[in-house]
C-alpha cells in the first residue's frame, strides 16, 4: 500500500471529527443538534470510506444519513419532552452499563484491529468498485438482493400499519378501547377525564364536520 502523507493526515482529522461529534451527540441538550451532530459524525466516516477507495459506499453514506438523520430529528422532536434543550437535562442514562459496554466494545474492536490477520491482496488499480458492486448484486448475491426487496416491503407495510392513523376505512382507533389495567378490567384511563373529553373533544369536531 502506498499513499501520501496527506491521506494519513486526512484520516486522523476525520477520525477525530467523527469521534468528537459523536461525543457531542451526548453532550448537547437539543435533540435536533444531537441528530445533526450524529450526521456530521457519519459524514466524516463516509469520507474515510472514500479514502479507503470505497467511493460509492462513502457517498451513499452522505446520502442515506442525510435523509435518515432528518427523519430521526423529526421524530425526536415529536416525541421527546423539551426537544430543544431549553431546560438543562441529562442526555445520558444507565451510565454504568453504558460505560461497561463501551469499554468492552472498544477492547473487542481494538483487539480485532491489532491482532487479526488481514489478507494482503492489493486490488489492481483498474478495478472499478461501483461496477464490481453491481456485478455482485446481479450475480451471486441476487437472491439476497431480492429478499432484501421483500424485507423492505414488509417494513413498508409494517410502517403503514403502525403509524397511519387514518386508513381507507376511517380512523384506525375508532371504536377501540384502551386495554384494562388488569385482565378483564375496565378500560384504562381516568373515567372523569373521559367525560370531560366528551364535551371538549366533540366541541372541536362540530366545527369541521
Amino acid at each position, binding site marked *: 500500500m502506498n499513499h501520501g502523507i496527506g491521506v494519513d493526515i486526512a484520516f486522523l482529522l476525520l477520525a477525530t471529527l467523527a469521534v468528537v461529534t459523536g461525543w457531542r451527540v451526548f453532550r448537547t*441538550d437539543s435533540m435536533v443538534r444531537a441528530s445533526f451532530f450524529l450526521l456530521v459524525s457519519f459524514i466524516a466516516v463516509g469520507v474515510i470510506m472514500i479514502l479507503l477507495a470505497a467511493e460509492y459506499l462513502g457517498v451513499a453514506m452522505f446520502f442515506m444519513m442525510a435523509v435518515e438523520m432528518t427523519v430521526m430529528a423529526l421524530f425526536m422532536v415529536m416525541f421527546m419532552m423539551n426537544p430543544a434543550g*431549553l*431546560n*438543562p437535562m441529562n442526555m445520558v442514562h444507565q451510565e454504568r452499563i453504558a460505560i461497561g459496554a463501551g469499554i468492552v466494545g472498544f477492547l473487542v474492536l481494538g483487539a480485532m484491529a491489532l491482532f487479526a490477520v488481514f489478507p494482503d491482496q492489493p486490488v489492481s488499480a483498474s478495478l472499478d468498485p461501483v461496477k464490481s458492486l453491481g456485478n455482485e448484486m446481479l450475480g451471486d448475491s441476487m437472491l439476497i438482493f431480492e429478499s432484501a426487496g421483500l424485507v423492505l416491503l414488509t417494513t413498508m407495510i409494517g410502517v403503514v400499519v403502525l403509524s397511519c392513523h*387514518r386508513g381507507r376505512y376511517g380512523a384506525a382507533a375508532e371504536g377501540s378501547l384502551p386495554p384494562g389495567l388488569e385482565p378483564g378490567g375496565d378500560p384504562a384511563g381516568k373515567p372523569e377525564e373521559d367525560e370531560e373529553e366528551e364535551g371538549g373533544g366533540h366541541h372541536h369536531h362540530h366545527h*369541521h364536520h
Partner: protein
Amino acid sequence: MAVSWLRKLASRTQVPVFPVLGKQGDRALRYLALSPEIELVDSPRHASVLLIAGEVPADRFEPLRRVHDQLPYPFTTLWFRSEPWPHLENVPRVEKLDELPGALITAHRELMAGQRDSAPRILTDKPPNPWKGEGDFGQGGEGMMGGVPYGRPMAMNMQDDIRDGLTLDSLTFRLGPFFSAFPPGMMAEITLQGDLVQTWSTQLAPYPQSLDPVFFTARERPVPIAELELARARHHLHRLFQALRLAGLENASLDALRLAQNLSTSSTLGGLRRRLVRSGFFRLSSMEGGVLDPEQARQIGGPAARAAGLDDDLRLEDAGYRRLRFSPACQTHGNTRARWQQTLNEIDQSLHLAQQAERDEVYTSEVDRIETPRGPWSEQGPEDASPLLDEVLPGLEWGEALATVASLDVAAVVNEGGGTQTPDELRVVQGGSGNVFK
C-alpha cells in the same frame, strides 16, 4: 470611505417598506404596490421603512409598538394620514397619496445617508419574563419543562390532536392586527398543532371597510347601474389582488390591480381569468378549505353565500336590473375555490351589466335595499362576519386557513359614505392621467 460607498449604493435599492395598516390604509397599500421604487415586504425584519398608513385605533397601539420595535436597525417611520406619536421626534407625516412614494424614498435615502437617525426604540429592553440562567451552562429553567427559560414558558399543553389523537404540544399565539395575510386590523388567537389549526378565536374584528361612494349614493337616490357595477367589479378585483399575492402569483396580482385601476365599461376579464386558469391557480393552490354551510353562508352574505349555493341577491328586486335580465350565478361547493370562481364570474357579470346599462342608460330603482359587493344592505349594512372564522378554520392546514381568510370578505361596511374619501383622493381619481384608483 468604503462604508459611505456602500451606503450610497444601498440608498438606491427599491425601498423595502413594511406597511402597518390603519383604517382605510389598504388604499395606500394598493397605490404602493404599483409604485416601481417601493417593495412591500411581509415581515418587519425585511424593511427599512415602517409605514403607518391610516389612523390606527387606540386598542391597536400596543401591537403597533411591538411591530415598531421589531424593525432591525437602522430604520425610520412614516405616518400617512395618521398622527405620529408625540414622543417620536421629527417624524414626517404625509397627507397626499401621490406624494407617498416620494416621501418613502426620501426617508430611506436620508436614513442611508445618515441625514436621519434610526427611529428610537419605544419599549423597554427587558425579557418578557424576568429570568436568570439556571442550568449548568447558564441555560434553562427549572426541571424538564418548568420555569421560563430565556424569559418564556415552554410549550406544554397536552391537548389531544383533533385529527389523529396524538398528544403533542400545541402552540397558542395571537396573530395580527398587522399581519399581511389578514384583513386589515384583524387579530386572532390561534392554537396550532403542527401546522394544523386547532382553535381560532378572532379577538379584534377587522376595520370596517369603506365602499365606493356610489354605493352610499345608491342608498339615497337612483344611480346609473353602469357606475355601480364597475365599482362592484373593482371591489372584487382588489380582493383578488390580495389573494393572488398571498398565493405567490405576484405578477397576476398586479394585473388584477391594474385592471381595477383602469376599469371601464369596455374592460374584459377574459385575459386575467385565462391566465389564472392556465397557471393552475384553481388546482394547485390551497382551495379545498373553508366550506360554509348554508347557515354560515347566510350569515356572511354576498358572493360567499352565492358560492355556497344560496341565490340571494338584492339586485333581483330592482327594476333596473330586471330590465337588464339579471340573474345571479351560483356555485355549489362553498369552499375557497368556489368563492374565487364565484368572484370571477361576478366580476365578469358586472362588466357585462355595466356595458349594457351604459348603452341603455339604466338606473337603479331601489334605494332602501341594495346589494353591495360585500353583501345585502337593507335595514343594516353588512356587518362584521369575522367570528365566522372561528367555526370555519379549525381543522385546516395553515396555508389552507389563510387562503380561506383571504377568500372571505368578513369586514363590516362603514355606515356613512361621506367622509371616506378626502378631496385629495377624489382629485387623484378624477384627474385624467393621475387616474390611480378609487
